[in-house]
């Protein structure tokens, strides 16, 4: 495998029913490609949390996944409100999710912490009123 494999998804910001579809699709493809369970788990958790965040907070966005020789790169871009205080957002248990979102089982304040925990690197590029791009890498 010389050329990286790329996936692109438009994440629908209005539809909670389909939230997670991009992550499930990537997981299935990685399994078909024969990647080990621990790698698949890391990518699945990180991408799902990111995907859900885009739906909850940013009216959707785009997800790009690049599967290379030595790493899997996940890039999530949105044009949402941005993250005002990244340090606070990274704290476990901190959440700005609304009550109707919490009723669905979200809003545990574990999204960003899980993304960091399950990837080998994570970079957050965010600007209030402009949007957020999160780049995560899982090493192979």
């Amino acid at each position: 495998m010389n050329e990286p494999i790329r996936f692109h998804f438009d994440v629908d910001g209005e539809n909670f029913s389909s939230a997670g579809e991009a992550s499930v699709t990537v997981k299935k493809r990685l399994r078909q490609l024969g990647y080990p369970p621990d790698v698949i788990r890391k990518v699945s958790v990180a991408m799902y949390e990111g995907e859900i965040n885009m739906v909850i907070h940013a009216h959707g966005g785009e997800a790009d996944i690049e599967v290379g020789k030595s790493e899997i790169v996940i890039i999530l871009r949105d044009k949402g409100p941005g993250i005002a205080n990244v340090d606070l957002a990274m704290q476990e248990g901190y959440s700005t999710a609304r009550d109707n979102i919490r009723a669905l089982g979200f809003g545990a304040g574990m999204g960003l912490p899980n993304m960091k925990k399950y990837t080998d690197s994570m970079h957050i590029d965010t600007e209030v009123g402009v949007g957020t791009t999160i780049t995560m890498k899982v090493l192979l």
Partner: protein
Amino acid sequence: MTLTELIDALSLHVVCPPSSPEREVRNVYVGDLLSRAMSRLQADDLWITIMTNTNVVAVAELTDVAAVLLAEDVALLPDAVHAAQDNGIAVLSSEKSAFELCRDMAHILKANA
């Protein structure tokens, strides 16, 4: 123990049948907050929850749980039923509370150890 044995032992209702009835259940996790469940669930776990929307199916799919067990007779929402069927996710239910199900599972797992 297998899913078939589990369904029999706990008298569970089958909401969406398992694609692999002989799959072994290794452990149990209880929880309704999806990010916590996502982080803690392991492959082949039985996940006991009272959440009923499609996101339960997505988390179950991503974590490779053996089955979702809905406590207190909560009903999976129709689009979640379809998603579970499409993805081959086993969904079971019981009128018992999460505590009662855990208590019974502990007895069973101990007896099978």
